[in-house]
C-alpha cells in the first residue's frame, strides 16, 4: 500500500487505470455515476436494442450505490457502496465499451476480472456501511436517467476526496484472493 493516497480524476485513460495496483489507496475527485441493479439492467437492455446509453461511460467510474434521500440542506443523506457481485452480469459489457472504474464492496467474478484485464479497468472498494462519511464527499448529485427507479435511478455525482482502495487491479491482482474462495451462487442485495 502506498503511503499517501493517489488522486484519481475521471475520465481515466487506459494507462492510468493500468498504473494502479491492488492495495493502493486513492482519493477520487470529479464526476462519477451512481448505478445499481435496476439501472444496470436498463443500460444493458438499451444496448441490446441498439439504443445509446444515457451517459457517456468512456473513461468513467460507476459507483454501486443507492443513497438515502438527503434531508433539507443535504445533497444526499447516506451513500456507501452496495455489494458488487450483483452487477457482475452487466459489468463486462460496460468495461468493453470503455468503463474504467467501478466502486463497490466485495469480490468480483472471474468474468469481470477478465474484462478488466482485457480492457484496462480497475475495481475500487469503498468502506461498506460508512455511508455518512462517504456522503460528505458527494458535493453534487442529480438524476441523470431512470428517475422512476427511485433509489436505484442513474445519478451523476460530483465527489471530492472520495476515499477508496484498489481492491482488484487491471492485472487481476486482488486483495480478496488471499482470504476467500469466490462463490457465485449468492446474489447479496443491499
Amino acid at each position: 500500500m502506498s503511503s499517501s493516497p493517489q488522486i484519481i480524476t475521471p475520465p481515466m485513460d487506459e494507462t492510468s487505470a493500468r498504473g494502479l495496483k491492488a492495495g493502493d489507496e486513492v482519493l477520487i475527485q470529479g464526476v462519477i455515476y451512481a448505478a445499481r441493479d435496476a439501472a444496470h439492467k436498463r443500460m444493458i437492455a438499451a444496448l441490446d436494442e441498439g439504443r445509446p446509453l444515457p451517459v457517456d461511460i468512456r473513461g468513467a467510474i460507476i459507483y454501486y450505490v443507492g443513497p438515502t434521500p438527503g434531508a433539507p440542506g443535504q445533497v444526499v443523506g447516506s451513500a456507501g457502496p452496495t455489494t458488487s457481485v450483483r452487477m457482475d452480469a452487466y459489468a463486462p459489457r460496460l468495461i468493453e465499451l470503455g468503463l474504467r472504474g467501478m466502486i463497490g464492496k466485495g469480490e468480483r467474478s472471474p468474468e469481470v476480472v477478465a474484462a478488466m484485464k482485457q480492457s484496462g479497468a480497475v475495481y475500487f472498494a469503498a468502506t461498506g456501511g460508512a455511508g455518512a462519511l462517504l456522503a460528505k464527499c458527494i458535493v453534487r448529485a442529480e438524476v441523470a436517467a431512470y428517475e422512476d427507479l427511485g433509489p436505484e435511478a442513474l445519478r451523476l455525482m460530483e465527489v471530492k476526496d472520495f476515499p477508496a482502495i484498489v481492491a482488484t487491479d487491471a492485472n487481476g491482482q486482488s486483495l480478496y484472493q488471499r482470504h476467500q474462495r469466490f462463490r457465485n451462487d449468492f446474489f447479496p442485495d443491499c
Partner: protein
Amino acid sequence: MREISTEVIREALLDCVRRACFILMPDVRQKLEESLRTETGETGKSILRQLIKNAEIAAAESRPLCQDTGVAVVFLEIGQEIHLTGGSLEETVQAAVREAYKKFYLRKSLVDHPLNRKNTGDNTPAMIHTRIVPGDRMKIGFVAKGGGCENMSRIGMLTPSVGCRGVVDFVVQTVRDAGGNPCPPVVVGVGLGGNFEKAALLAKEALLRPLGRPAELPADRELERTLLKEVNDTGVGPMGLGGRTTALAVHVKSFPCHIAALPVAVNLDCHSHRHVETVL
C-alpha cells in the same frame, strides 16, 4: 389488566427507528475501538477508523449510518395481562415504519413481489414477530436489517454425528464465503437447534443480545468462544480486505431439537448492527 394504547407503541417505534439508523449503539462502538487496538493490518485499521468517524458524522449531522436502512424487523413481546387499545397492532406497526422511513429520510428498500420487484415506496411491510409472555410489560425490539449481510446468511440441517466440529465448520465457512459482502467486521448470530424455521428465528434473536452480555447456557458460551476465535482466524478482515477483525462478536442461541436433527442457522449482521430495544 393494563391498557396500552397503540399510539404509545407508534411513538416508541418511531424512536426506535431513529435511534437505530442514526446512532451507533455504544456496545458496537466500544467493540470497534477495541478492535482498532488489536487489528494488525494497515488496511484493516484504516477501515475501522473510518467506521468510528462515520458514526461521529452520522450523529453530528443526522445522517443515517448506512444508506441501506434495511428491512424493518420488529419483535414484540406482549405481556398477557395487557389490553391493547386504539386499533390493530399489525397496522400500527406498519404505519409507524411507513411514517419513520419518510420522516427521517431513510431509504425505501422493499419491493412488492420477489419477481416483479416494484418498490413499495414506503419501506413496508415490516417483518413482525410477536410472542405472548407472562406479565403486563411489552418489549419492543427493532432491527434495521441490511440486505448485504442478510443475503450472506445461511441455514443448514446438519446430521447430529458431525457434532460441535460440524457446527463450527458450517459457521466458519459461511463467514468465509461471505467475504467482504456483509460488511465485516460482522456480528454473527447462530441459531442452534429447534427445527427449520425456529433455528432461523433463534439466529436473529441472538443478534438482539447486547454485545458483551454472555449467553445463558454454559455450552453456548463455550461455543461462542471457539467460534469467535476461528472466525477471526480466517483473515477475512474488515470489508474482506484482510485482517484479524472479521467479527466483533458471535452470539449463540440454542434450543432443544429432534433426535434426528441438528439445525444450525447463521444470520450475519454488519458492523452497523442496528438493534434497539425498549420496554413499555
